[in-house]
């Protein structure tokens, strides 16, 4: 029996085991607290006879929603009403993000322009938009809409097929035609083809060093293919023109003042921040980089594409992601101007059913899902951008 020479250390003196012990302790505490909160809430709700649980989701909502991307009426369930709200939030956030990134980049680049006027104008835009609270901007745009535009019967009619009034904007739109389905297919095919061309061009360049005009080829594909299909169907130009029927315009596509005001407010506000992010990104790339690129004979476009952007994007993407998340979250201010976004519908649901805890939990969960999925996508993109590092 040869005893080990090392003395047996009691577990409370072993830092590793102790750390684990502490972790378990903290976990138990948190779990206990959570249990206490949940059970306490449930008992009290029960004592006051306030309904709990998710059963209300299957009940008839009995309220109407102003705009919806899917068929909805007050005879549908709360679950469907909430889905309508969530889709409206997705709609305004998605369009808002795309427009904000587009305009933000444009203004950010304009801010760096060597043209004094352009740069100053961009600067003023950024300062003004950044400094006015977004809620105020929403009220402003909404009020502009209903205070200045005439009623539907006297709608402004600046060009054929376009009507502006205090009920929103109604526009002529292509009437549905079987060609559209095939045009969409052609568009998707063009996207796939463009990607294939891009892969092929890269490989060829790596092997032989020959450049290939990928951008122009892709552009030609993406525009050309659907156009070809459209022509093949005899170029159907049947337009669905909005007409004043009863109280409002019918036909074409229309956007409500609430939607336009919300989109405008969010996009102008966020694009000011995006512009600053873009400017910071571009300025973070040393001047020597541009000079070196010029010295080895790269063209202006190549300098931007191959030298500046890959480095600038690394700086731009993380704060840009946070701006996208901000826009999504700010879209909940829609409540103030009556756009039926998720919060608005959830608030009404809470009020009609009295189940605030479930409702607020739903609101939190939905925004968490939106934010996390944006983050996941942008992190993936960030990784790709970061890999360019050599």
């Amino acid at each position, binding site marked *: 029996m040869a005893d080990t020479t090392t003395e047996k250390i009691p577990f409370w003196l072993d830092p590793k085991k102790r750390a684990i012990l502490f972790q378990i302790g903290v976990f138990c505490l948190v779990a206990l607290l959570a249990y206490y909160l949940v059970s306490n809430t449930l008992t*009290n709700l029960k004592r*006051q*006879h306030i309904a709990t649980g998710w059963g209300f989701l299957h009940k008839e909502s009995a309220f*109407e929603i102003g705009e919806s991307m899917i068929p909805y009426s*007050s005879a549908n369930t709360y679950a469907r009403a909430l889905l309508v709200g969530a889709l409206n939030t997705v709609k305004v956030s998605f369009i808002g993000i795309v427009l904000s990134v587009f305009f933000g980049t444009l203004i950010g680049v304009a801010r760096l322009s060597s043209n004094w006027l352009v740069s100053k104008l961009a600067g003023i835009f950024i300062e003004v938009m950044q400094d006015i609270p977004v809620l105020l901007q929403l009220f402003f745009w909404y009020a502009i809409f*209903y205070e200045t535009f005439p009623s539907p019967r006297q709608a402004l009619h600046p060009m054929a097929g376009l009507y502006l009034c205090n009920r929103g904007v109604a526009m002529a739109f292509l009437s549905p035609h079987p060609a559209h389905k095939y045009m969409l297919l052609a568009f998707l095919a063009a996207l796939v083809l463009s990607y294939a061309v891009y892969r092929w061009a890269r490989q060829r360049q790596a092997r032989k060093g020959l450049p290939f005009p990928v951008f122009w080829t892709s552009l030609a594909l993406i525009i050309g293919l659907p156009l070809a299909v459209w022509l093949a169907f005899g170029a159907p130009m049947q337009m669905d023109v909005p007409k004043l029927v009863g*109280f409002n315009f019918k036909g074409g596509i229309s956007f409500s003042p609430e939607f336009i005001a919300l989109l405008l407010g969010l996009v102008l506000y966020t694009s000011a921040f995006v512009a600053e992010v873009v400017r910071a990104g571009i300025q973070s790339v040393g001047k020597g980089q541009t000079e070196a690129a010029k010295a080895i004979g790269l063209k202006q476009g190549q300098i931007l594409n191959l030298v500046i952007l890959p480095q600038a994007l690394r700086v731009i993407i993380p704060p840009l992601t946070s701006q996208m998340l901000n826009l999504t979250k700010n879209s909940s201010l829609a409540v*103030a101007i*009556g756009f039926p976004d998720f919060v608005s519908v959830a608030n009404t649901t809470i009020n009609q*059913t009295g189940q605030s805890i479930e409702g607020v939990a739903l609101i939190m969960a939905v925004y968490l899902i939106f934010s996390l999925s944006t983050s996941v996508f942008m992190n993936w993109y960030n990784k790709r951008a970061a890999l360019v590092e050599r």
Partner: protein
Amino acid sequence: MKMTKLCVLALAAVFMLSTVALAGTLQDVRAKGFIQAGVNGGVFGFSMPDKKGVWKGLDVDTARAIAAAVFGDASKVKYVALTAVQRLPALQSGEIDVLCRNTTQTLTRDTVNGLNFAHVNFYDGQGFLVPKKLGVKSAKELDGATVCVLPGTTTELNAADFFRSHGMKWKPVVIENTSELNKAFFAGRCDVLTSDSSQLAAQRSVSPNPANYVLLPEIISKEPLAPVVRHGDDQWYDVVNWTVMALIQAEELGITSKNVDQMLKSKDPRIKRFLGVTPGLGKALGLDNKWAYNIVKQVGNYGEIFDRNVGPKTKLGLQRGLNALWTKGGLMYAAPFR
């Protein structure tokens, strides 16, 4: 902003539900020295701060009457302006002691929402307000109309039911803030504003051109508006309930804020009991014997409150209608004070 408020309320609900019912609301209110009343932020005649920032209105006076009953001082009320969406969570979570905010009594609110409704302080019904130039004569001609409506109200549901039952299409515009909603309507964002008809009259009276708007003849719902308290506190419920009844009873007995001191000498046993000259009723409620005297002295009887805030001589110019005493063909009827 609104969302944060709601989140806070929900969290508050979690923490406060435990404390709410432990001590009675009456004791809580006495301890803190004032009543926290949830009111509407902007309905002229019901609850709205005047130019000096003093809250005025029928609902405000109801809250003041409760304070007069509890403290003998009608000014001991703190008002919390709540939107329709915020009001019920605020009451459930214990942020306010009583809700006097033109809230319609419904079965769901009375049961699964965990609330109790006191005696009705205003009988209302839902109507439609339209601009005259629209040329609409009846609510049944509103197919395809855009309708401004407050979210989280019974009116929102009634409107949906009304249009559905008549097979008509409509487009709601729902804005949570009452004054924002009205601004949108009077600027022409909607063809129709729908709400309780007393409120429509109120909004019209403060609009830029009241003469350009007309109320349609249809009244599509019953809206008994009443003060609300939480489930599970019977004593507080009794105080609020009997305060409203005291307002009505005072009118029935002919006691007004002006003659209440002479009425103390009255020989009528009903008046003696009511004003606490013959003690007993106040004690039964957990209040002092002067409670009803204080209500009438400081706030007035129901008729005075009605006339002062919404009656024919005000900008609203409402008739008593359903809100007249039962002896005059109305529905205002207080249970016996004995």
